């Protein structure tokens, strides 16, 4: 243990001397978080509300799930104000801002044209229209996402209609009934996702946390790859010939990586909170998540690094892994809103679990983050197990 600490102290001294770590661990994530937070969040969105105009011309069975179910549900939660318009023209006018109700700033209009339900139920092309207000990009994007999500559900239903018709034309009437039923059952999952994430992590916190996680993997890489550097400089031979157990060399590197990761996360959390106004949530919960995320980052990067033969290779492998996992994990943009495969694929990364855990913490209590913490620890166990198996050979030439 003493020798592990001696090795870690030496490593930290080397890292402090190497300026690149300040850029990777602190300057880059803080700078980018500030830029992202500013672009997406000019004022504060702590109490985000959007105002949508709805023109339900159709009044059919497939219109009400959207109007009353999805949009009505958001209105009940207090996130959306709904303004009902009698015609498409009125809804459009409201968005353009010269409507009679000047007290309302309408972000987007949702127009359900006449015959919409009938066309969908008989398998003919139908359309839903969204009119976006150019001045409120976030809220109008939300409207588009909601409507697109709903339309996707209908597509699926419409597909079912068409198939049924092809097999048995006589059951056309039944098909319409099935379609109506299917469309009016649960509100689309993607719409629920959007509302959930806007409710849970505000933009500044999301980008602060995302970038901190993204760069965490680069930061711990400095500790992990220092084993390859020892080999490069020949000093690994001295460590192997010294009267220290081999595990203490590994432990030393783990302590270094942990120290670097925790310190950079701590500084980023404090800085984003005070400078950018991010709200990370319950400190104990955040601490638990940060420790678990740092451990998983070390495990994953150690595994990647153990595959490399030289320190140059190690740096290349690490960068590829850190960037790839960071993007898949949704640290740059809320990938869960993309829906589909991408939204589920992100859970193969520790990044997504960390962000998920922060979201759960914001939306609930510390008990809610346990699944995320467990997932992060599972990543740690699996990846460090593989890393140790690979390093065993490396340390016993």
């Amino acid at each position: 243990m003493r020798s592990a600490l001696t090795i870690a102290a030496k490593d930290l001294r080397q890292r402090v001397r190497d300026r690149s770590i300040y850029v990777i661990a602190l300057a880059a994530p803080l700078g980018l978080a500030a830029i992202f937070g500013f672009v997406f969040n000019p004022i504060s969105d702590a109490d985000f509300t959007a105002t949508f105009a709805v023109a339900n011309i159709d009044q059919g069975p497939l219109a009400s799930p959207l109007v009353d179910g999805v949009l009505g549900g958001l209105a009940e939660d207090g996130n959306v104000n709904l303004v009902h318009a009698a015609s498409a023209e009125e809804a459009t006018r409201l968005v353009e801002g010269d409507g009679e109700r000047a007290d309302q700033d309408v972000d987007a209009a949702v127009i359900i044209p006449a015959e919409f339900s009938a066309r969908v139920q008989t398998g003919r092309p139908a359309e839903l229209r969204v009119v976006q207000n150019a001045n409120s990009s976030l809220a109008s994007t939300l409207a588009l996402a909601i409507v697109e999500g709903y339309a996707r559900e209908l597509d699926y239903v419409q597909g079912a209609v068409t198939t049924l018709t092809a097999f048995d034309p006589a059951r056309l009437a039944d098909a319409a009934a099935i379609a109506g039923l299917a469309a009016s059952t649960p509100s689309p999952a993607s719409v629920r996702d959007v509302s959930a994430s806007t409710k849970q992590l505000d933009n500044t916190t999301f980008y602060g946390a995302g970038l901190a996680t993204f760069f965490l993997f680069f930061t711990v890489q400095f500790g992990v790859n220092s084993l390859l550097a020892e080999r490069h400089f020949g000093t690994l031979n001295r460590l192997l010939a010294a009267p220290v157990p081999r595990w203490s060399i590994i432990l030393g590197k783990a302590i270094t990586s942990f120290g670097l990761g925790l310190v950079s996360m701590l500084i980023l959390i404090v800085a984003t909170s005070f400078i950018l106004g991010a709200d990370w949530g319950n400190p104990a919960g955040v601490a638990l998540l940060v420790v678990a995320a740092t451990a998983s980052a070390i495990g994953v990067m150690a595994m990647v690094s153990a595959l490399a033969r030289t320190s140059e290779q190690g740096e290349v492998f690490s960068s590829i892994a850190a960037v790839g996992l960071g993007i898949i994990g949704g640290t740059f943009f809320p990938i869960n809103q993309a829906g589909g495969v991408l939204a589920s694929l992100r859970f193969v990364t520790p990044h997504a679990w960390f962000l998920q855990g922060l979201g759960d913490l914001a939306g609930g209590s510390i008990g809610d983050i346990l699944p995320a913490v467990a997932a992060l620890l599972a990543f740690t166990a699996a990846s460090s197990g593989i890393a140790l198996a690979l390093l065993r050979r490396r340390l016993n030439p």
Partner: protein
Amino acid sequence: MLECRDLRKSFGELAAVDGVSFHIAAGETYGLLGPNGAGKTTSISMAVGLMQRDGGQVLVDGEPLDPGTTRLKAKIGLVPQDLALYPDLTARENLRFFGRLYDMPRARLSRRVDEVLEIIGLSDRANDRADTFSGGMKRRLNIGIGLLHAPRLLVLDEPTVGVDPQSRNAILESIEQLGSEGLAVLYTTHYMEEAERLCDRIGIIDRGQIKAEGTRRELAQILSQHDRVRLSATGPLHEGAEALRRIAGVQQVDVTDGAIDVLVEQAGNSLMAILSALEQSGVSITGVEIDEPNLEAVFLHLTGRSLRD
């Protein structure tokens, strides 16, 4: 102090070390002399417990040393062939770090660091980063790290490669000094002069095997019945050498720049034949020297190879 028995190590098909045995007593300097790729570094890596063995045994003070055992390793100091130091740390920081790994108490470590800096002549550069040092200074720091914890066995792997003659002499002097202070030294080299000057006993190693072992005098005895004839000459030396190889009693012919070295059983009996053979080949002789065989000749005799790269 150190005993290696039948060390073996293969890399794939290649038997890099193929049954190497030797022992070193306290206060003795033992040299492993061999050309590039002979297996010197691989042998000592196993001897200091850095590399896993495929076979064989290492005993330090009679106790078995394995890569996993840590206690015995404190008795050994290693100076690796390739520089092994942290370029971004100062000379003093490099020394202190390795001193801590050897569990040296703080006060003693500080004193010892200053002592070693003095020995390797880097006291005035102690607080400069190693990457600002010249090649020779880095070599000296590399040696200093191995000396730091005052080991009882010092293992040096070609420590003078790439060092200017002056620093080289200083290094050899300090190793001689350490040897006379009772330290056991294992020294590998492919420089004949270094082995002759430093080592009490020498093992000649080639292709992973020790071909002969003994004091300089004992090794020379291998060829004691022989004479070395050195002919300074000009002309078609290689053709001349070819002709000499056909003469009875000639054991070995080696052509160097402007000279032919011939190993013969009896110089007196063969000299006339040698001179006339060379004359017939068109070689003109400018000087003849008859000498005892040196280590170089012994090496060539044993391995059929020259030590020079």
